């Protein structure tokens, strides 16, 4: 057995106790909001809800993935868990203890046991320090004063991550991106952590280097029984590496479950858009899924009810009598007007009046709808758009096409294994889930 950083006493006790059943990391309703303030008086005028009620748990040795697009709050969530950002609500428990209550030696232990690997390895190292010094720095910080021992541990780890012991004397610029990411991993491992938070660990790498770094991380996690929170926008990374996965949209966790279940048969409409946007490796299948509307709302002013509703292809209709395609066309019409993204022939900026027929054609609106109220609303809105009065059209549509998706927030349905935050999966609401690729 090679030399490693010793684990703390408390931990050794704990390992012997029966506490091992509880998860290593428990995140419960985590909220991190950033205030928007006015320039002079610093009065709060709004909040960016970067993370808004995220819950998940990671067991010892488990790899959990957090996916989502840029701006979905996944990095903020990770930083809040590590205490790098101060959460504004919710609770983070590490090994059963609330992280924000930790002080002194316990806090230091937490900082040793939970390590971060950042996205861009170029920024992660001091260019004027030999990498061996950078990798050894956490050891010194956590109280290992014996330089010989530090050197031995670093040399050993460098070999373990596929580099050479003599590389310790070289400088960051002498390494390639993949090698630097291996060094980042070595630095995280050097203090013998229980949790590694890897924020986009491979997005600066490509092809086989990416695969190599991922398999290295996977090997190490199994060898040392380390839990990993892997944050990525790359579904391929999550598919390969994670046991379970959570999908984030505008600060909320919309779906969570076993990686295979979530990626092979996604249930939440947003997850479906995300998975369906990835080009297939089969060149004869070139279909790409698109959301109902394109614009991602601002996290400072998220939509009411389900945050995905203005972009949702599976939006629940106000009445069951509508055909799915007809309803989609009408909903797209409504939300496009709301966003102000009007198609070409009736562009608002042209300022000229158009024919209601042109409006119908531009949005591909159905005629002869079975429901009179909706037919009337669509008709009235079409005329309003033709007259150039978008505000009236918006109001008319909002009034008659109100859906449960915008009125109430979907329940998180806490205790179940596969969480889907969508009204279609709520038994109290009259709408069936639509089968994937159905």
């Amino acid at each position, binding site marked *: 057995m090679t030399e490693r950083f010793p684990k703390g006493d408390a931990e050794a006790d704990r390992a012997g106790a029966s506490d091992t059943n509880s998860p290593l990391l428990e995140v419960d309703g985590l909220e991190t909001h950033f205030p928007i303030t006015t320039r002079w008086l610093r009065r709060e005028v709004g909040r960016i809800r970067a993370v808004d009620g995220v819950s998940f748990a990671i067991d010892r040795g488990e790899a959990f993935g957090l996916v989502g*697009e*840029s701006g979905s709050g996944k990095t903020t969530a990770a930083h809040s868990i590590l205490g790098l950002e101060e959460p504004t609500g919710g609770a983070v428990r590490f090994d059963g203890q609330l992280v924000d209550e930790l002080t002194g030696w316990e806090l230091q232990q937490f900082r040793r046991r939970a390590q971060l690997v950042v996205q861009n390895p170029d920024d992660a190292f001091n260019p004027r320090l030999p990498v061996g010094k950078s990798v050894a720095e956490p050891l010194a910080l956590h109280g290992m004063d014996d330089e010989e021992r530090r050197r031995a541990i670093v040399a050993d780890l460098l070999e373990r991550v*596929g*580099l050479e012991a003599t590389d310790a004397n070289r400088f960051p610029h002498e390494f*390639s*991106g*993949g*090698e630097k990411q*291996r060094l980042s991993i070595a630095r995280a491992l050097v203090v013998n952590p229980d949790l590694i938070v890897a924020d986009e660990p491979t997005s600066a790498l*490509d*092809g*086989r*280097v*990416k*695969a*190599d770094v*991922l*398999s*290295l991380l996977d*090997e190490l996690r199994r060898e040392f029984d380390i839990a990993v929170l892997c944050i990525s*926008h790359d*579904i*391929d990374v999550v*598919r*390969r590496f994670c046991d379970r996965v959570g999908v984030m949209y505008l600060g909320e966790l919309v779906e969570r479950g076993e990686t295979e279940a979530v990626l092979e048969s996604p249930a939440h409409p947003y997850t479906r*858009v*995300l998975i369906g*946007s*990835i*080009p*297939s*490796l*089969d*060149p*004869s299948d*070139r279909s*790409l*899924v*698109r*959301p109902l509307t*394109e*614009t991602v709302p601002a996290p400072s002013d998220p939509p009411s009810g389900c945050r995905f509703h203005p972009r949702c292809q599976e939006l629940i209709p106000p009445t069951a009598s509508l055909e799915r395609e007809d309803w989609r066309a009408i909903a797209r019409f409504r939300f496009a007007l709301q*966003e*102000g*993204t*009007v198609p*070409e022939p009736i*562009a*608002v*900026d*042209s300022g000229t009046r158009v024919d209601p027929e042109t409006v119908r054609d531009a949005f591909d609106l159905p005629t002869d709808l079975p429901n009179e109220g909706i037919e009337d609303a669509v008709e009235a809105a079409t005329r309003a758009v033709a007259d150039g009065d978008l505000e009236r059209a918006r109001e008319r549509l909002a009034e008659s096409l109100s859906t449960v998706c915008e009125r109430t927030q979907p329940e998180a349905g806490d205790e179940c294994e596969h969480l889907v935050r969508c009204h279609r999966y709520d038994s109290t609401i009259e709408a069936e889930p639509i089968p994937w690729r159905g």
Partner: protein
Amino acid sequence: MTDDHISDERTSTEPLLAVDGLRVHVRTERETIRAVDGVSFELCRGETVCLIGESGSGKSVTCESLTRLVPEPPFEIVGGCVEFEGRDLFAADTGRCRRVRGDRIAHVFQNPQSALDPVYTVGEQLIETIEIHEDVPKTNARDRAIGLLRQVGIPRPADRIDDYPHEFSGGMCQRVAIAIALTAEPDLVVADEPTTAVDVTVQARLIELLREVTDGGTSLLVVTHDLRVAAALADRLLVMYGGTIVERGPIEELFERPAHPYTQALFESYAGRSAGSDRTARGDVPADGCRFRSECPHAVEACSDGEQPPFYAVGDDSDRRASCVHYGPGNDPGAVLEAGATIAEAEGSDD
């Protein structure tokens, strides 16, 4: 039209672009790096060709050398020729080269935020490009700029035209960059990692936009490291490694059964089984023989002879070519081909 310069093997359909034996070196104080070392390919009208490879394989340098965009020095184009519609671009004087570069061949780069000038509005940048290419009054140029923005899917173009690049999202900036590339109605768009800096949902829309561009008859040369992007766009694929092309062929056949051991390794990394996890992290690409031989599981002694092996036909398919001695005359490619089929199969079930 002068077509006496074109290569003699294809006289019936003249390719739009023919690159022959392109070699680009980088001179540094200590050594000379052969960034592009004998690259040849052709591109027909309306065709989409993807150049795939890892960072450092020379794919971007190849593309930027076509129109001499690479900075000389430190780069130096030391050999080969590039013919566009039968005209030798390297022999042309700077004026003519510039005309072709601006009017007929347009570039789109990886990072749109840095391709656009932050201190001018997107409208000013578009109008500037339009005025360089056409002699039009300012108001007409503005209308045309709005039309171009609309064509690439920017909502409310008449409002957005006076916005600055920082007011656009990454995906929208890339659309603006594509609009600028399309101003002169080029015959060829060279896109270097056009979707790498954006999210998948945005990437999906950009892929659709690029497909629309080629539907209009424009040719597209896409550089990417992402097999998925190649699968979504390309008609034909060129696989680059160590400054040379190691395999070429129609996309469907190539994805079904990658032939060159390097291509196979690339596909394998997508399947999540990295054969080379024990591979040395620091592999120097050899300067002669097959560039991939030091990492190749099928390497034999003949691999280190001479230059990169010539292209041999793969199987009976006349369009598939692999630069690997195993496909040469008198050799049995069975084992290598078999490895490719298993990888492709595993990949299919994974997807």
